[in-house]
């Protein structure tokens, strides 16, 4: 439910710019290019609109929280009944803390460092190619396995809380090593609703499909990013 709210929020963030282009890469219209860069940089870096942190948190919740359903289920079934909500909360605090810090660094690195240095087209192109290659790399397949990790949790007391929070942090780090390239790409493409949706689908299929197809995932990443490029570049 929280993730759904976050998606609605992210869609809302994309919406004001959507009318300028056929697809919905938020705010890359010809007339507003410089403004858009400024406003997005503002949003992302926490300046200007005052939504920076909120946007980052919403992005993390929308994209990452649904990937923890199996972990949350493990927590729920592995905890004493009266402690299960507390266990899930402790896990999510650890998990989201990792991702919010990492996403803040991704946003800052992309828009504060990379784009001013090499330009948006090059930065987005690098992000796209890196994400596509990452999807088919054996290391990604290896990292994905760590996300399925379950751990014994102390049944009661402060150790139970600590175990759950620690499980959240380690799962968060595993998730970062699996999804970092997709999150950089989503950020480089302005958190466009379309790009985010496709990349989210790629993440979900990697996490939950019986036998994920890395080639298909890579093509999906390339496809949606090239579509965005095609829509954006003539105006740029």
């Amino acid at each position: 439910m929280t993730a759904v709210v976050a998606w609605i929020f992210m869609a809302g963030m994309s919406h004001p710019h959507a009318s300028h282009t056929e697809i919905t890469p938020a705010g890359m219209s010809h007339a507003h290019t410089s403004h858009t860069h400024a406003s997005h940089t503002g949003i992302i870096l926490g300046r200007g609109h005052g939504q920076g942190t909120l946007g980052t948190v919403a992005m993390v919740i929308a994209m990452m929280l649904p990937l923890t359903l199996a972990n949350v289920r493990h927590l729920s079934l592995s905890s004493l009944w009266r402690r299960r909500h507390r266990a899930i909360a402790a896990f999510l605090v650890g998990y989201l803390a990792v991702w919010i810090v990492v996403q803040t660094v991704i946003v800052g690195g992309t828009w504060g460092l990379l784009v001013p240095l090499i330009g948006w087209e090059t930065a987005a192109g690098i992000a796209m190619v890196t994400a596509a290659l990452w999807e088919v790399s054996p290391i990604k397949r290896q990292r994905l396995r760590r996300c399925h990790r379950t751990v014994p949790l102390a049944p009661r007391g402060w150790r139970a809380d600590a175990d759950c929070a620690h499980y959240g942090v380690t799962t968060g780090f595993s998730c970062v090593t699996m999804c970092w390239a997709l999150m950089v790409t989503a950020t480089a493409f302005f958190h466009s609703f379309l790009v985010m949706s496709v990349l989210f689908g790629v993440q979900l299929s990697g996490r939950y499909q019986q036998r994920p197809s890395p080639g298909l995932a890579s093509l999906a990443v390339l496809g949606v990013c090239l579509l965005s490029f095609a829509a954006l570049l003539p105006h740029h």
Partner: protein
Amino acid sequence: MFERRDVWELSEEDPWHEIIWWYARAVTAMQGRDGTDFSDPTSWRYLAAIHGISIPRRSWPRGVTWRECQHNSWFFLPWHRIYLHYFESVVRRTIVALGGPGDWALPYWDYSDPRRPDVRKLPPAFREPRMSSGDPLDPPVNPLFVSERRTTPFNINQGDEIPPELDFALDTATAFGQRFFSRLTVDLDPSPEEELFARGFGGPRTGWNWAGGMPGVLEVVPHNWVHGIVGGWMSDPTTAARDPIFWLHHANLDRLWEAWLALGDPSDPDNREFRNPSTARWRNMWFKVGGGASTVTLRVREVLDTTQPPLNYRYSNIAVPSVPTPAPVAVLAASADQGPQEFFPEKVGASEDRVPLETTATEVEIAIGAPSGPALRERGEGAQPRRVYLKVENVRGKEPAAAGYLVYVNLPPGAEPATDPTTYKDRRVGQITMFGVLQASEPDGEHSGNGLTFSYDITDVYKRLQEAGEWDPERLQVALVPVLPGAAQGGDVSVGQVSLFYT
């Protein structure tokens, strides 16, 4: 139609019966194709590597499909059937190329027949360092002999029988007592209770190489135990298939699958007892085995009838002695609603720390709390639980101190079941086997480093102990007793948690 025959029946005719002799010739020829990198898909080491190999993935030759074995999985039986089919085809082609019979088929080793004590020994042809058939074409060394096999407390290569105290490890009765392939009831989506605790004959619902999956009953007994009993290469999935007896062991498991299916009632197609899963998720799963021109890609549904192409084989005998009449699963209290109903297992107690698995028995105490969730709502305060489960999870480590462990609850003070595993059977609730523990513990491995997980329905034992006044509702003693402990102290395998659930 090819016929897979009992290796002990062949051995009684002639220890070097032509089926066994041609197998040895083919193994020698296939070992000759190994080369330095095992990249020939018809070489012995390539075939073994399909099951498992310890060489890191980055050092593999390009395009090989290695380390694919399905354990603790819904696909344990069908994957191994396809693997055996590929292996048998390669061996048969090799035999034909050597001038042997074109109808050669893989024999099976049925070690569980109590009427024939000899079958508890390794067949003679697998025990002799040198071939003694007298044929001038005999290879200089016997490729069926593997010196690494178990030597203590019994020497399997010396022809020692698997001792009677290990009857439990060969007994197929528990597996044949399972009425369903992977579930307690019907073929719908699994409830949490079934997902977590109902292992069935063939294994619970899982995906491909699923993390944290549990073995089906047949996978533990006799499969895992026989791997541990033969020992040496057989005790580790990355080397197991290098031992020529591996293939005869798995042919027997494949035969037991056929025997279990034969218990079904063909006149009642709606009855899901003793039937394969009907769901498309299971039937449409595909596996690619082998390499080059001989690659085999098959879906599960294509290998369910062994008498049809592409398999075209049957077993000489699928009669299984002492098949018990399957008893209904014990339920302590009937549900108020007798219709289809899901029961959510509620954890009521768990061990606080990791429990080491050593060469001596380990005891762990679990503090049990009164149920406060679904188990309470379902039954009411103070009422008996409907079912009681014990779960042993996150069994991790690199070096097991024993081939496995027997799990007991509430042993009387001073009890020492390690000296004779046949004692205290009424308090034995399950078994832990070490086959594959190293691979399941690797964080980047197929099982995500979750280790092995086992669960046991202990409702019957709970009921007996309660009636005898030996069940403490606040405390449970669990003893983990080693089977075939190593000679030296040590080992680093431990249990992450032992926990108790009520529904």
